[in-house]
């Protein structure tokens, strides 16, 4: 699995999930430095697979509120912060699942529950998109095969 093919899977997944369930047209291939200047909702989720790793997503709060309102079919003003955060967690869950389905097609993967985090650098293969109301950055950080082989032979 090259970094290019993981990046492609990641970008395709972000676009597919945003378009299909959140009706957002994502403008892709933005430089990551542009992102994360505004307050953001940060989500992290661990996954088991071959290899295992961590998926992280940062979504500008402005975008999170509008996206949540559209997803739930409600007015943005009527939503609570926990409701917005729950939608962000599910968005992360879906993007991660979509990426893993693309790159680990023969292996069953397991996703842990997504968690809100306060400080987490988005590492690994990263993709940043503009949602129209704020930036979304997604990153998938997979343990390298060398590392996991070492772990197995050590135990």
């Amino acid at each position: 699995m090259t970094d290019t093919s993981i990046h492609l899977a990641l970008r395709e997944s972000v676009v597919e999930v945003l378009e299909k369930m959140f009706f957002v047209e994502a403008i892709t291939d933005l430089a990551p430095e542009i992102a994360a200047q505004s307050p953001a909702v940060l989500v992290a989720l661990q996954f088991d697979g071959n290899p295992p790793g961590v998926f992280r997503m940062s979504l500008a709060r402005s975008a999170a509120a509008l996206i949540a309102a559209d997803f739930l079919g409600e007015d943005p003003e009527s939503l609570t912060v926990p409701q917005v955060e729950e939608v962000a967690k599910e968005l992360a869950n879906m993007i991660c699942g979509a990426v893993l389905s693309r790159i680990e097609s023969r292996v069953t993967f397991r996703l842990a529950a997504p968690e809100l985090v306060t400080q987490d650098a988005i590492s690994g293969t990263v993709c940043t998109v503009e949602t129209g109301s704020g930036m979304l950055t997604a990153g998938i950080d997979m343990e390298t095969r060398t590392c996991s082989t070492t772990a197995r032979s050590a135990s």
Partner: protein
Amino acid sequence: MAYRVLITDDSPAMRSFVRRVIQLSGFELSHCFEAGDGEEALDLLRREWVDAILTDINMPGVDGEELLRRLAADEMLRSVPAIVISTDATENRISRLLSLGARGYVTKPFRPETLRAELERILGVPVD
């Protein structure tokens, strides 16, 4: 017709979304029960009868696969149709779940119309 549907997913946001699809599909007289994981779902099913179960796979505790196994093992519950709604689109997973007795499978992300089509296939088209 007023159907009774159980929605099992650890994400309250996804449960709301699915509930909305059910209501907009013409099944608005349906009663939607909700459960956050397989254990809660089984607890509820011991007390209430439902026409269909919609379930996620990746959930803490009793996950979707284990829920399907326990449903299949139960004399009364094995006849209740279960539709899986999951991010896992891999062939391995889908064929395993169908062999565990899932009657339908919808991959996230999905269009509301796709879930409606599955519901109509399992429950029948709602009649005015």
